């Protein structure tokens, strides 16, 4: 006899303080979460950082999970929001760190080396505006419908479909650019 406990049931038990439910839920959601973080951030170190931050904040955030949406939808929303925060901080940080001590410059240089190592795939994703990138990162998830992606991002299904058309247009343009250059 086999039985699958739904994510939502586990999430509610975890929000109410059940340790094992929380552990179990996070363990089985982790890899999907990490994959999404990678698609959102584009580099392995950033994905690791983001995943760690989300894991750290999850116990508290889970208190606010109301069970109205699917757990995965809710978790992806958390991830997308965390990614937005991180990118925003990154932009402020990059602007702000001119002239900060040597150690800081070195660290940034090390980060840039990592950035240089990006393959064209993530570079292609980086050329997309943030909202298209989030949309693409979500829809590349297994079995993620446009409706669910819309739920995560807080926009309508139609918007997602339109954005995906934009993504395709941009990727095609990028592809042609590469062909000609």
């Amino acid at each position: 006899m086999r039985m699958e406990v739904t994510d939502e049931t586990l999430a509610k038990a975890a929000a109410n303080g059940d340790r094992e439910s929380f552990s179990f839920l996070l363990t089985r959601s982790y890899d999907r979460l990490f994959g999404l973080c990678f698609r959102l951030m584009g580099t392995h170190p950033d994905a690791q950082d983001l995943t760690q931050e989300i894991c750290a904040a999850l116990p508290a955030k889970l208190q606010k999970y109301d069970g109205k949406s699917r757990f995965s939808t809710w978790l992806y929303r958390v991830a997308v929001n965390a990614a937005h925060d991180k990118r925003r901080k990154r932009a402020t940080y990059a602007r702000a760190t001119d002239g900060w001590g040597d150690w800081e410059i070195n660290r940034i240089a090390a980060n840039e080396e990592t950035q240089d190592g990006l393959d064209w795939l993530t570079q292609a994703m980086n050329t997309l505006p943030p909202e298209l990138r989030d949309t693409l990162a979500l829809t590349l998830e297994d079995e993620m419908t446009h409706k669910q992606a819309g739920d995560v991002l807080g926009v309508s299904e139609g918007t997602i479909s339109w954005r995906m058309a934009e993504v395709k247009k941009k990727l095609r343009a990028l592809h042609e650019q590469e062909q000609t250059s």
Partner: protein
Amino acid sequence: MTDDLKHLKDMMTAATPKPAQKADDLALAMKNFDDLQNSRQGSVDEPRLTSDRPTNRSGFTAGVFSMLNSLTTRGTLTVTTSIAALGIGLFFYTQNDLSGFSSNPDQSPEIVKDTALTLPNPAPAKPPAAPTVVAQSGASNTASSNPTLGKIAESGATSGDLMRETSTEVFAAESPMLMAEPAPVTASRKMAPQAATGLSREIAAYDDSMIAPEVPNTEAFANEDSNPVKITSDDPVSTFSIDVDTASYAIMRSSILNGYLPDPQSVRVEEMINYFPYDYPAPMANEAPFKPTITIMPTPWNAGTQLVHIGIQGEMPALDDRPPLNLVFLIDTSGSMNSRDKLPLLIQSFNLMLSQLRPEDEIAIVTYAGSAGMVLEPTKVSDKSRISAALSHLSAGGSTAGQQGLQQAYSVVESMAKDGEIGRIILATDGDFNVGISNPDALKDFIAKKRDTGTYLSVLGFGRGNLDDATMQALAQNGNGQAAYIDTLSEAQKVLVDQLGGALFPIANDVKIQVEFNPTQIAEYRLIGYETRALAREDFNNDAVDAGEIGAGHTVTAIYEITPVGSDAVLNDALRYQTTDAIEGSKELGFLKLRYKTPGADTSQLLSTPITADMNNITDDVKFSVAIAGYGQILRDSKYLNGWSFDDAIAFAVASKGDDAFGYRAEAIKLMRLAKSLDAN
């Protein structure tokens, strides 16, 4: 276009690296979960990121972690880059075993009951029927793994050897080798050219985690590559800021006493040398507040070179008529401070220091992270019992309260300021610099602005594991203060009692050193240490450029290794197409210039003296500092030592130990012996 997206998706799947830190992240999440359950207090929305982990895992979670360790490790070693092959686990349990689920010793039953929303353990979601099997799936569809479930369950009995700890629950962890066969996921690997290197990096990381899975290390050290040998005719001028920090030495000691050689990145040779008090000739009254003494001596590790040893002795002003001090202790009370060598040691250290202060000095205590705000209003040291009581009531714990700790400390110190008094903030932390300003540039500007108002900022580091040495250095350098690392009570005694004057009373600010070598005498030179303190040549005369401070009675030592013209030890060949104009002239080896500002002054003053070959009064102090310089370079794997070993450094140090009234040198020799033994392993 749908095909294109499918293509993109496949590629993305292939490029997605394996989550290398799953166990760590899960442990962190579980810790925060426990924290939240155990202490529903303070602001719970933003739990702070901490590297703490549950100290003991038992029962159910122990099994989960050992399962995950085995899974991800083996999983990495097999060639499964796809997330589809990840995280497939299976565990089942019987009703009899359910009692084992609550066997978390950290979670007191009373506290759980106090929490209104808490459900009884185990969660009602788990049906009582036994045995119950819960299939756990990672990225892959549960359906696709259904056919394998039976096989997995059967194999469960034999995969028990994957568990490192025994537990009352029965687990069946599927070996990833099993999964690798049905999942043809390796085909798209070639799309991600750097995936292979990424994988080997991960394997390396996993190896580490297998050896020491319990040691999270978020330490960050500030260092640069060792200074290279410079050719005097190309680059005759060397400029740097003095450095009176000692943190690097204490970090080295803490590493060695814990049984491992320090990270070469953590070794800053000048801080190791400057850890020791030396008895260089002191300045006379009416002279500059400090006096440089130059010594030329043969290099112990290279017969063909010499050392130029510059020893700077700060004056010891009469402390009896010193102005009153206003001290603000800015203390990190985050949860990670809650270990024996952190907050308790900090409290003991500050208590030691109280005995050195005078009744009219004032102390205030501000905490950040965890408990909130000012815990002690500015209090005269004459009311010592009140200060001690406030210190002893400090406790670590709770989540970040987003205190504007640093701003508050500065405003408190400003409110205490009266004419002629010295204001200083002493920030004590284990590496959590969540002091209220998160933007590094804003933080630097803030500290620099406050520095100009005359308030000093010193940083004391406590504990290992989370130590952010780099930020410590940056804060103290920008705040005109010192960074010291306190690992033992005796170190607290040294920093906060024996050398308190130097730590609290600056005698010269923004001290810069510039040495110009004479190319007709010196072919090559190399500055030992001070890599993180290098200044541009033009910054020497620019009073707007910040540099290091010298405190009362401080000694600062800088050592150059120089190669005389014509020596066998010259490393660089002469150039074929450059004419070498042999200018006959000065026999001086070089020229030393020092710039400093007296405290409170905006313009600097200049001290200068030629370096000549007859400066050869080699004292024990000079020799001992050279022994430490050599030892530090050994720890840094310097390439200039020509095989000079720990034995040589020990012999040199023993021969020059001198009086050693406080026993610091004897301790250093003991550490050198330990380092030698550790190095032999």
